[in-house]
């Protein structure tokens, strides 16, 4: 088993097991008794290492949101299979993603067009500021996934480059 949660940029490996009166959380080198009791009002009582605290938890797919001690946190469950697959995938530079949510102001390239590293591909607007999105490498545009004026979330796939040609074809 290789369970993990992503919290911010950090990844945490962990396991869960049963105990006589609840569960045990196994982290690198330590084991902590834990339990969770759902309350009628939608909140929950989280007990960790004998200390109980009221929390509010919401989930959506693999995202877990926790309001704890007056602060909201976001965690993402990392599927064991996906983590394995991610290691064998192609270059991240084939995918141009949105650095922040916003809308597309201008599209400078078309599918099939050859572009050089650093060349302006798209112009997006967010927070009343324009940001130019440049080509991460030399290549050929495979697809532009949004049209001018459309809005998108952070990390949305804006543009794809054709997979890089093999070394031998140079």
């Amino acid at each position, binding site marked *: 088993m290789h369970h993990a949660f992503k919290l911010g940029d950090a990844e945490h490996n962990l396991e869960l097991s049963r105990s006589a009166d609840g569960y045990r959380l196994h982290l690198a080198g330590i*084991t902590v008794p834990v339990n969770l009791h759902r309350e009628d009002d939608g909140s929950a009582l989280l007990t960790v290492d004998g200390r109980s605290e009221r929390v509010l938890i919401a989930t959506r797919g693999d995202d877990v949101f926790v309001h704890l001690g007056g602060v909201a946190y976001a965690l993402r469950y990392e599927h064991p299979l996906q983590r394995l697959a991610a290691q064998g995938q192609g270059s991240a530079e084939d995918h141009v993603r949105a650095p922040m949510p916003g809308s597309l102001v201008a599209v400078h390239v078309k599918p099939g067009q050859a572009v050089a590293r650093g060349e302006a591909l798209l112009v997006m607007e967010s927070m009343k500021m324009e940001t130019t999105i440049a080509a991460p490498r030399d290549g050929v545009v495979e697809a532009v996934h949004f049209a001018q004026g459309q809005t998108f979330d952070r990390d949305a796939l804006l543009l794809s480059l054709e997979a890089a040609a093999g070394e031998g074809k140079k």
Partner: protein
Amino acid sequence: MKPIPEPAVLEATRARAAANMLKFDTLLVANRGEIAVRILRTVQSLGLKGAVVYHAADRNAPAVRMADHAVEITGATPVAAYLDGKQILAAAKSCGAGAIHPGYGFLSENAGFARAVAEAGLTFVGPTPEQIELMGDKVRARAFVAGGGFPVAPSAIEDDDPATFAERALKVPFPLLIKPAAGGGGKGMRIVREPAQLKAELERARSEGQRYFGDGRLYVERYIENPRHIEVQVLGDAHGNVVHLFERECSVQRRFQKIVEETPSPALDPELRSRICETAAGIARKAGYRNAGTVEFIFGAGGEFYFLEMNTRLQVEHPVTEMITGKDLVLEQLRVAAGEKLGYAQEQLRSEGHSIEFRIYAEDPARGYTPTTGPVLALRPPQGEGVRVDSGIVQGQDVTAAFDPMLAKLIVWGRDRGAAIARADKALAEYALLGCITNTAFLRRLLNHKAFVEGQVHTGFLDAHPEIAAEPALDPATLHQLLAAGALVTRPMRDVADLVPDMHAAIGSWSN
């Protein structure tokens, strides 16, 4: 805390509305989000009908659910829909609205729209188109204010007489700020501290202006170090009565946008307070101003203040003024628009206690305050005495990148500033919104910062203290709590754990 509005004013206006003595029985809100809800609340409390326009992206928004009529409008983008005056006027006609409230932003300071509303025979809840035009033109507004003998920052404008510009610039008190006449966004601006450096700096600024804007003309004005932003709420009726409703300090900003606003300002003593408030009322009086408005000043460490601009609309931060005066500013706007007199004099207005507003933004302060998006999976706003939440979101709604990232405002009131801060800290901790990152934890770090507690802030405060925006390191106990919560609600993890026979669990053996 004073009741808002004063019950007598509410009763009297409700009676006039019932007797058909206002010019309208239905009012259309040409806005969205929390301000649409805020305006509808007062409109409906008067027994009037409240209508709202909405873009499809806002279909599930609380204002749409709350309104007596909701009319869908369309546009190339959601924002464009709310800027389309023609569609909004047609919507007003279709639901029989006799008045339009523009809120803030969008069409609220558009003289052409105000004119079109009047020409269609409807009441525009705002100033005259001429007043919007005067204050919307920053150069004209500045000249108008200076002409009345009110303080504007000492300056020299090249265009006034290019031949004597350098000479006139030397007479402005140092330090100076050189600005390109065609500029904006801080580009090409230079600070000059020594008169001997002026000539060389003017040349550099001119070449930068030429490069950035294709225009080398310049002007200089006195540079205020670490300025505060202090503004004054004014209110005028169509009969020449003008009062001020005290000041608001809005110095805590990021990217020139306000985050926290409070009243009274911790920077003012009673004498200075009455001077700045009287100056604002004087400017509004000179303009014959009708409607709620805000006169903004830049305030220096030596107590000097200069006119910046006047906003001819309701402000985002108007609630703090309501909390200390008991006046419902939307109700006052409606009364004035209906032709009523204010009915009270300056001496009858009293400020009581301290109020602070915190803007709840969908943004990540640790990532340069960039906007965030996501579904509102759970929403539990704080409640209690002295706590007010003006919100434009409900559970189940999506926060998208289509609009401004402000989701709601938390407004607190306390007997004094310390009590208000304590109340805000508790309320922000209780403010649970899950599914989309917001700035509530950042706001708590901010209000507990020594400089904020002592009232020592200026507009560059957050840039000078980047540690407030930075995500604090998680302590191990909190990390364990979070991972435990995550593991216990994640099915694949729980299923695996539950597969282990209870007997093994009871023995307590575990091997990896």
